[in-house]
């Protein structure tokens, strides 16, 4: 079974008042086929943990392993390309592209060819909407396009940072169902960082970050 392990992960920031430890000896194991929710107060280190697991930032102490492959041994770019895809709170879509083109970008770097309409329709974006530039879509639609892009990626790990933050309740419900399907039917590891208790309650496992410690 595909497994993502976080081992003794610590992370500190340097600021004017000195060193601030954000993550303190965090250990966790994420298994394929399950959806995880990481909750915690603002500043608890949720986004830092997400950044490290997504290889968006460099490890300081500890290790992250996917099927025993250490993130220390492969480049962040390779890890992101092969193993992880991220849905950002602020969508992070490319503005001069249409929704379809944004979804297609997900496969630009691994040589695959994807049908963007297939993934857009999964998140409720019509073919006509898919041909609009990102700026012509609402916040909710943009969030769904970002999720469609994650769906279109071939990554076994899907990380999502507040993926439903800009969505209405109905859409939130639908999106969470999609994430669950990704975990349960496509056997991916889905990790959602959220403030929402509602979203967290739908996860298979909830992890809480408190003062840099994961419980």
């Amino acid at each position, binding site marked *: 079974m595909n497994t993502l392990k976080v081992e003794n992960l610590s992370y500190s920031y340097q600021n004017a008042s000195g060193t601030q430890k954000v993550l303190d000896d965090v250990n966790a194991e994420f298994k394929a086929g399950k959806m995880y929710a990481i909750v915690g107060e603002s500043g608890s280190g949720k986004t830092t943990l997400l950044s490290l697991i997504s290889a*968006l930032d460099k490890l300081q102490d500890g290790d992250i392993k996917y099927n025993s492959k250490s993130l220390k041994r492969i480049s962040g770019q*390779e890890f992101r*390309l092969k193993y992880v895809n991220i849905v*950002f709170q602020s969508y*992070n879509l490319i503005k*001069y592209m249409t929704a379809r083109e944004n979804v297609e970008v997900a496969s*630009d*770097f*691994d040589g695959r060819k994807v049908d963007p309409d297939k993934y857009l329709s999964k998140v409720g974006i019509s073919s006509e909407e898919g041909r609009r530039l990102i700026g012509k879509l609402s916040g909710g639609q943009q969030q769904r396009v970002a999720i469609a892009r994650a769906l279109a*990626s071939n990554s076994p790990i899907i990380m999502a940072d507040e993926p439903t933050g800009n969505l209405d309740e109905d859409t939130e419900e639908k999106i969470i169902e999609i994430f669950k399907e990704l975990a349960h039917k496509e056997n991916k590891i889905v990790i959602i960082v959220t403030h929402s208790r509602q979203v967290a309650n739908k996860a298979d496992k909830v992890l809480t970050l408190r003062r840099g410690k994961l419980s």
Partner: protein
Amino acid sequence: MFKNMLKRSFLSIKRKFGRTVILTLIFFMMANLVLAAFIIKSAVSAQMDYAKSTLGGTVSIQADMDSIRENQKTEMEKGGDPREMFKEMARPSVDVNTANEIATNYSDYVRDYSYSVSTSANSNNLETVETKSNGGGMQMPGGFGGADGKSSSSSSTALDTDITISGVNAYAYIDGVKNESMTIKDGSYFDEDSTDKALISYEFAELNGLSVGDTFTLKNAYTEAEVSLTVIGIYDTSEERADANTIYMNTETAAKFLSTEDYNNGNYNVDNVNFYMTNSDKAEEFVSKINSDYTSLAENNLKVAVDTSEYDSISGSIESVGGFANTILIIVIIAAIIIVTLIVMINVKDRRYEIGVLMSLGASKKNVIGQIIAELIIVGTLGFILASATGTVFAGTLGKSIVDSQTASSNSQQEKNFGRPGASSSSKGSNSGMPEMPTEGSDSGAKNMKTKMAENRNNKKVELDINAKVEDYLLLFITGYLVIIVALILPSISIMRYQPKEILAGKE
């Protein structure tokens, strides 16, 4: 992946239309300036070649006074005969066969050549024009190297050696022809085949009632050589110093006035031997070849000297234009690198977020930089193509005006020094500034100039192409792409330092 990279580049160019237009305009303006500099450089290079071919320098064979003085000193010390020494002091000359042979053997170097035979004559039947200096007396030969004495309309009986015989291998090298002070009032100029034909002054003709076709006889008072001459043309001159008693003819005819000994079976000596170079750069090489192949020249107290002052005088100004073009080119290229670097840096900063997204999706930094390069090369190509279309008008006009001014200056020099009628090699191949031949004699002028060198010169038309050439466009594109690549160095370094989290965190 390369295809996807290009696809993203095209999308960015197409969708960010305003930015694309601004970038294209910037590249267009830069390219125009670069192209202008290349056109000027190319025009200057053409102009330098033109000047080299028209003002290619002169190599002359002249008396080696240092050597003569040294020989005299040695002879004096040995107690030599002063009369012999005086003979040594006589101006050394080159025999005509050697002069012709050098010109023929080194036709690659020699565009044209000239020499003269000067002597004097008199006649019992003809009167000479009285001039301020002669008062009817003896004249020193000076037709080729500069006529002496001012003519007047009064006359005196011809006494002794009043008439100057000036033989020139080509009439173009008569001073009056060169400085355009001489015009033909009747008949025509002589040429190499005009045996026993003479060109006389208007005053001399009037005084003696001579006209074209008339025959008269002159005798050298010293050599007793008597030659019967037919008037081929009557000249007039606006030159105040001109001697109306100078009769011009070809060297073969003039040599007939020499003594049998001096005539030397046709291998007589000639003075003022000048070889006009095809290219001033070759002058020194030509001199060393003559020195090695014709050692007898040095033995006879002759030396071969180079004079490229005409070329040097004009090349300075042309080179200054070339230097100016180089300065423009360097400034424009540096400015282009700085401006494009700044634009790309601003562009990269604006696109940090996009770069971060692409990197978060697994794009390598090389892929991201490649996309930006591809975009700039596509937009740059658009700008360069537009500049190529309009650059010919803009930069070409600038280059043309500079070259025209230089050409005018070069032509002026060339006419002053070489003005052989019918052989002008101005940029348009015109005969500007040259004395026109009378209609009747025009065919016997330039066309009958059978000297091989003169014919070569007649056929030589230097076409100055100041329009942008294929090489200029090629250089423009190469320089443009190099500027883009150099301009991308700094922004690329900043991209290489990016961590996607920093970019995305910055955005958030």
